[in-house]
């Protein structure tokens, strides 16, 4: 593995029940980088994340840096809201120390610890999303894999989350892989972008994504509305 790389993927193919979900994917991620994985629904974004996590069988090569610690923020946890579980107990499932929890909450701008005693099922969707991020960050991972972090939450919370992720990336040299179908996030947030629709359609700097590539990615329905902040 080349120096400075944290992940190397070569000719990755994933088949689920004989359907090719991902085909011949090749890309690398550098340490401290933010990579967004962009694509329409059903493009195989979540499958890619799960495969990188070692949750699905695959062909090809996935090489993580040695002894890497990965944090994962899943798209949904459908069962958790029915369980009588406080926020603190949720964190303790990952053997988190009191101090560590306080630290991450502080960074997320949640200074009141009353939230720790709340039942998970009573949280707002924004709070819930933040809880999932805290959970993923417990144990000091070097990489964060993030599945649609801001689906279904308000813009204010969305901003907080991205600001927080940017801060964490700088502060702890955290590498972030983020799945989204929202192209604005790509411009705002990432250093590199992987456009995915079963196979890789583009890979590189977000500014270099061409309208043609986007058309291919989304099937002709997407336009980039360029606007400048002067």
């Amino acid at each position, binding site marked *: 593995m080349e120096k400075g790389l944290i992940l190397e993927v070569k000719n990755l193919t994933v088949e689920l029940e004989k359907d090719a979900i991902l085909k011949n994917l090749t890309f690398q991620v550098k340490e401290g980088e933010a990579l967004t994985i962009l694509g329409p629904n059903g493009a195989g974004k979540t499958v890619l994340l*799960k495969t990188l996590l*070692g949750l699905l069988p695959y062909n090809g090569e996935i090489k993580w840096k040695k002894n890497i610690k990965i944090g994962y923020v899943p798209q949904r946890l459908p*069962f958790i809201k029915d*369980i009588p579980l406080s926020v603190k107990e949720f964190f303790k499932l990952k053997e988190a120390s009191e101090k560590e929890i306080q630290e991450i909450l502080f960074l997320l701008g949640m200074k009141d610890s009353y939230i720790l005693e709340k*039942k998970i099922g009573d949280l707002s969707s924004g709070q819930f999303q933040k809880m999932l991020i805290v959970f993923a960050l417990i144990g000091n991972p070097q990489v964060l894999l993030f599945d649609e972090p801001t689906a279904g939450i308000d813009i204010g919370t969305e901003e907080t989350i991205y600001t927080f992720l940017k801060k964490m990336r700088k502060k702890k040299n955290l590498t972030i892989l983020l799945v989204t179908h929202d192209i604005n996030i790509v411009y705002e947030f990432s250093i590199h972008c992987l456009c995915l629709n079963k196979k890789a359609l583009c890979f590189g700097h977000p500014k270099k994504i061409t309208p043609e590539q986007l058309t291919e990615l989304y099937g002709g329905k997407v336009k980039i509305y360029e606007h400048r902040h002067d």
Partner: protein
Amino acid sequence: MINIFSLVAGIFITGVAAYLGSLMLSKKMALAAGPLGHLTLPGIALALIYGFDVTLGAFPFVILGIILIWLLEMKTKLPMEALTAIVFASGVAIAFLFLPIDQAEAALVGDISKIGLEDMIFSICLSLLVFVMLIKAYSKIVLISISEDLAKVQKIDVKKYNFIYLTMIAIVVALGVKIVGGLLTAALVAIPAAASRNISRNLFEYSFFGIFFGVLSCILGIFLSQLYGLPAGVLIIIINTAIFLITMILKRGK
């Protein structure tokens, strides 16, 4: 006179059963205890006919049940509910194939008066064993029932813990038949936890109230059975159900 052996054994067994019940967080898990309980019936029948301990009789059948559930779940696409119905019916049918009808009551709803000193010690040891296993595995199994993916990312061996979970159910169900018989043993696991869930805000309360309700029902059931000469197993389950109904009303009032 209350049989002190059965009271002590009962407290341990119902306590650990309720604690285990508080782990039945997902639908799949909650359904496992039912068919396992019913599958014990042929074993209990054999034990009653040949005069050995009902737990010993029940145990091999519970093991068989675990294997069956595993296989059926993997090999068929039937929903768990259908499998439960199949296993339940066949368990009862096989038991009555050879169980003399005058012994049916003891097999179905248990006979707590038969518990002696050795039974009590045996029950306490096994209950404590499961209790220790539960404390060790609790947080991992909770995480698995929240999300297997999250658990796997944490390097938790999901298959291993599913197996530990089923083993604990097997031991508890086999112990439970002593108190409430093969028909009702799953209820010792399920009902106290269900009642506790109605009023709990966190996991600690959930398992604490579960154990409390389970043990309370056991003590009340055994005392009332002395007073009225009714089978203790039946009363224990009815008291459990009454507690569940009360907690449901309390939940609505919130």
